[in-house]
């Protein structure tokens, strides 16, 4: 069965594309990045990066997609293959399918949290809970062994419902499924966002603490610290934010655009979707979490705790302050908007795989959708069961961060330098409903690739704490979070084998307390002043081999018994991702051989 997908309406395509870009990061990552990187001054590098990297890359990806669609290619392996004589590009294009499955595996889990929290907001689970109770509710929720509702394996159940819903919608196709969800979800997301933003802005002084005032939060977010503009870290943060917020380097934009005909516009569509994402991020995203949190918890608390976890561990408690009914309603709006932001993105992640299987193996839409769901389930269940062992974070780094930067760098070089900017430019302006400034031709050739190469190098060899100033002027030290640091597990100093019969200390110091209760042994290690550095707990079935007052070094055994070390889970997650990548490469190779048989080799 040939791939006969089509968009229903132009506005549907733009909303789906904007929905693909708008994700949880618009509401949770952007304000935190702004707060940590110069407040109001962050917006300057943010907008500069949007103009010099975001918009050009959007246009590049839309153009690549529409070009590929003309030869009936709807996923990046054979779209990229058709752009150059050298056939290795199809394996670079594998990233455009791999990334989506890898990200969907853990993204659907976050999406299932939002779905579950909508449910809990409706049944008013959080009403009357203290801040600590709301925070520990989340910890309990992600612990598969525990249940918040009495339903066994609650988090797994919500994950399966969420994945099932995604699979069903994908099986309805672009116009009958993805586009319909975007047309309902995006307006609702914006409406919920506006209502919560108005509340955040008008909250003012709650009187709960000395600086419990939403306007102090807004001031903190928008006060321009121009001296920060000279800090390279701020520019890297802004470039990273633009990159991830626009869903660049994923292969979804190319897939969506491949269903647009040559005579129809892509330039204005791309601009509209990109700016709509900016509106949700800068206008709505900046006006909800930080102002409301500062309004009830004060600036100091937010400075210490600003992060992703606030969405689930803090916001329900803050909504509680508005009374049972309004609190419940606000919870539905907040988690509802996060759910819509999530599902419009996760649906986009399914389309490259579906496009590939429909194009190359003539699979039906439901079959392609079902296998996507199955792959995501196989890849995703370990993130649910081993969430606390770091499985989730590894997927996020390798599939959701490193792969995007690598892929975007290659596709930009392919488009601007190998395919050729003249052909690329012609593709972009064909059928355009706006005049594209010619300056962007030069930006696409020189500035955008340069930006991406710098980001790629920055990701590879990030200096300690992202402090580039120090790295250039004083001493360079590799950060544990850099790609090389991650690859070599440079942050793991002890317990470096997968399995062992002893558990070693990861820090040096003095055992300030070693004791046992009915369930566990506890070892508390402190420094010379008695300050606690690290606390370890192991089940009573293990043998504790240190006593209070002992001096320990890194790698000194603390417990004996059989241990599965965290490094095992990290490596297992990498093996799974690598297997997925190889699996898709094999499929691409098979498809290539199939094409050879029927003489469908481009160029």
């Amino acid at each position, binding site marked *: 069965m040939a791939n006969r997908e*089509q968009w*229903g309406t132009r506005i549907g395509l733009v909303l789906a594309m904007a929905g693909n870009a708008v994700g949880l990061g618009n509401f949770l990552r952007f304000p935190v990045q702004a707060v940590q990187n110069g407040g109001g001054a962050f917006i300057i590098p943010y907008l500069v990066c949007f103009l010099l990297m975001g918009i050009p890359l959007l246009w590049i990806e839309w153009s690549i997609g529409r070009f590929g669609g003309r030869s009936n290619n709807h996923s990046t392996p054979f779209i990229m293959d058709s752009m150059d004589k050298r056939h290795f590009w199809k394996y670079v294009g594998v990233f455009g399918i791999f990334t989506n499955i890898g990200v969907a595996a853990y993204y659907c889990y976050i999406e299932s949290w939002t779905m579950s929290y909508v449910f809990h907001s409706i049944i008013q689970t959080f009403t009357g809970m203290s801040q600590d109770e709301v925070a520990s509710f989340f910890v309990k929720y992600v612990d598969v062994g525990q249940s918040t509702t009495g339903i066994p394996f609650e988090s797994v159940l919500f994950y399966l419902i969420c994945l099932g819903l995604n699979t069903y919608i994908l099986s309805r196709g672009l116009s009958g499924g993805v586009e319909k969800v975007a047309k309902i979800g995006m307006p609702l997301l914006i409406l919920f966002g506006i209502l919560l933003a108005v509340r955040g802005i008008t909250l003012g002084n709650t009187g709960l603490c000395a600086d419990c005032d939403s306007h102090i939060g807004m001031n903190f977010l*928008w*006060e321009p610290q121009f001296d920060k503009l000279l800090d390279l870290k701020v520019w890297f943060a802004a470039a990273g934010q633009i990159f991830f917020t626009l869903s660049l380097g994923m292969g979804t934009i190319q897939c969506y655009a491949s269903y647009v005909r040559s005579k129809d516009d892509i330039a*204005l569509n791309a601009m*509209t979707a990109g700016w709509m994402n900016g*509106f949700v991020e800068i*206008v709505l995203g900046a006006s909800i979490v930080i102002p409301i949190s500062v309004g009830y918890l004060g600036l100091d608390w937010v400075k210490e705790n600003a992060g992703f976890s606030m969405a689930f561990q803090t916001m329900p408690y803050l909504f509680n302050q508005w009374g049972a009914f309004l609190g419940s309603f606000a919870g539905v709006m907040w988690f509802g908007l996060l759910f819509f932001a999530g599902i419009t993105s996760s649906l986009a992640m399914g389309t490259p795989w579906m496009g590939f299987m429909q194009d190359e193996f003539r699979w039906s839409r439901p079959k392609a959708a079902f296998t996507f769901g199955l792959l995501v389930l196989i890849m995703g269940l370990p993130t649910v069961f081993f969430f606390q062992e770091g499985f989730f974070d590894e997927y996020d780094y390798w599939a959701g961060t490193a792969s995007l930067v690598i892929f975007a760098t290659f596709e930009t070089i392919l488009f601007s330098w190998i395919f050729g900017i003249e052909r690329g430019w012609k593709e972009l302006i064909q059928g355009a409903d706006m005049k594209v400034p010619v300056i962007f031709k030069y930006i696409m050739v020189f500035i955008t690739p340069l930006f991406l190469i710098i980001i790629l190098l920055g990701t590879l060899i990030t200096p300690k704490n992202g402090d580039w100033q120090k790295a250039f002027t004083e001493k360079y030290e590799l950060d544990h979070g850099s790609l090389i640091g991650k690859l070599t597990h440079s942050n793991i100093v002890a317990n470096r084998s997968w399995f062992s019969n002893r558990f070693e200390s990861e820090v040096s110091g003095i055992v300030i307390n070693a004791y046992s209760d009915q369930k566990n042994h506890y070892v508390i290690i402190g420094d010379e002043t008695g300050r606690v550095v690290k606390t370890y707990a192991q089940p009573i079935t293990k043998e504790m081999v240190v006593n209070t007052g002992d001096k320990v070094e890194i790698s000194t055994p603390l417990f004996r018994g059989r241990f599965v070390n965290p490094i095992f889970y990290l490596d297992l997650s990498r093996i799974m991702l690598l297997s997925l990548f190889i699996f898709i490469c094999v499929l691409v190779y098979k498809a290539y051989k199939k094409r050879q048989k029927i003489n469908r080799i481009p160029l």
Partner: protein
Amino acid sequence: MTTAALITMITVQALVTIISGYFFWKILTAKPKPEPDSYSEE
């Protein structure tokens, strides 16, 4: 809020809203291309 923070916030948010609105309006008012086009319902 300080004046600098207020001005930054209003300027940036107004600018982004106006630009987003402008492009969205252009999409809504753009003349459809002759059939067959990319959209099954238009």
